[in-house]
């Protein structure tokens, strides 16, 4: 998990200054996408649960790098810390409490109805690709709209005196929501205590 974090930092540091239009898929992007798709398939098909958990951690690492590449470092940090790090550890911890069965086959046999359903969903999503603006396009509604995104970008520093707009939205503009989320995290811990019939965490 430290490797995941370190790699995320390295990617943050090496993020190039924003280029207005990214029309072509670069080599880094293509290899990251291929890595993510391959690890996702391997997670679904791996016969050994331990292997699936490890590959799933690699998938999260790839997603974190991809988020960094798409200039969402806050999301990338969360993905690296929570998904690649904490979730993998918790899954491994749970696996240690089960019995491990030795398998001859590396991969699960494909469940064709499930694969067909997933294929249909994938094809349906592909049909919508045409209407999605190119990554980094200045005309994308999410970026060009003056009432929301641009308002936050121009007003954040004036109103909250912090540079990170994401944090300003989380802690100031939507502070009450964040309070609710923090309480949800707390309630999650309490719920785990109740479900496992424990009175103390440690």
């Amino acid at each position: 998990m430290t490797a995941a974090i370190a790699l995320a930092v390295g990617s943050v540091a090496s993020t190039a200054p924003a280029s207005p239009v990214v029309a072509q898929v670069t080599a880094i992007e293509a290899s990251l996408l291929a890595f993510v798709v391959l690890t996702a398939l391997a997670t679904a098909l791996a016969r050994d649960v331990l292997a699936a958990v490890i590959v799933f951690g690699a998938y999260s690492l790839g997603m974190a790098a991809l988020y960094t590449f798409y200039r969402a470092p806050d999301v990338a940090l969360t993905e690296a810390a929570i998904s690649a790090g904490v979730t993998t550890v918790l899954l491994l911890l749970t696996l240690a409490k089960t019995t491990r069965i030795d398998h001859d086959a590396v991969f699960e046999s494909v469940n064709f109805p499930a694969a067909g359903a997933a294929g249909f969903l994938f094809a349906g999503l592909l049909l919508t690709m045409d209407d999605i603006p190119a990554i980094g396009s200045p005309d994308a509604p999410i970026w060009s709209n003056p009432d929301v995104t641009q308002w936050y970008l121009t007003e954040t520093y004036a109103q909250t005196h912090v540079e990170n707009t994401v944090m300003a939205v989380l802690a100031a503009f939507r502070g009450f929501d964040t309070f609710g989320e923090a309480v949800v995290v707390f309630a999650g811990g309490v719920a785990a205590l109740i479900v496992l019939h424990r009175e103390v965490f440690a």
Partner: protein
Amino acid sequence: MTDSDDDTDMTDTATDSEADASTGEGADEQDDAEPDLPSHRAAPRSGRLDSEERQGTPYTESQVIMPTVKVVAPFAFTYGLFITFHGSGSPGGGFQGGAIMAAVVFMIAFAFGIESTRDWLANTVVVALAVGGALAFAGIGLVPVALGGAFLQYDLLPIPVLDPVKYGMEAVEVVGIAPIVSGVLMGLFFLLARGFNSDGDGFGNGSLDEDGSIDEQQRDEESIDGPDATDDAAVADGGLVGDGGHAGDGAVDTETASAGGDRR
């Protein structure tokens, strides 16, 4: 014998040598201790997810992992603090920083054993982080309300000299969100490591009084009444667990008792 074979299968996943070593002594002790088990403890033995016998987390001292973690942990922890404190100026914030700091504790637990980490990081610390964070967040939100403003209206915060908006947000991230996230994640980790508590008939083993407080008296009597049975069972656990799981249980029991005393 089937039980002990079954149990060593668990440890097999991580370490063959330790499992082999513990098979001999564990089997002997267990044969002696088995008939003394209280009925409510004996039943779940066959269950795969039962905690008391299974919670011996497979652990081996590794000469590679321990020094590596010793070197890496301070840097990773500092990085977590950096992410937390610099959330206003760079990517990150309390959530990510808190998760990284909790991950440092996971790392230490994997290198030096979960049970010893559990003893080192007392339950009080984990609970204080989670509860204190939630209370601090609510407190920072409610101070402006008390001064006639809205919830989390940072510019009303009575912070001298410094900019109240910026440092109010920093305070929410640093003393609110980060402790909640790190405390809850550490708590989940230790909870999962210990597993399901099949003792007794429900949450806490104590019954609820009419005023809603947990009946500590009854639990105290239980633990005094049956020292022989529980001790024998604990010996069996210790033999199987092999790395001080019993010590952890004892610490938790005393903590629970003292917490109950405080409450009353």
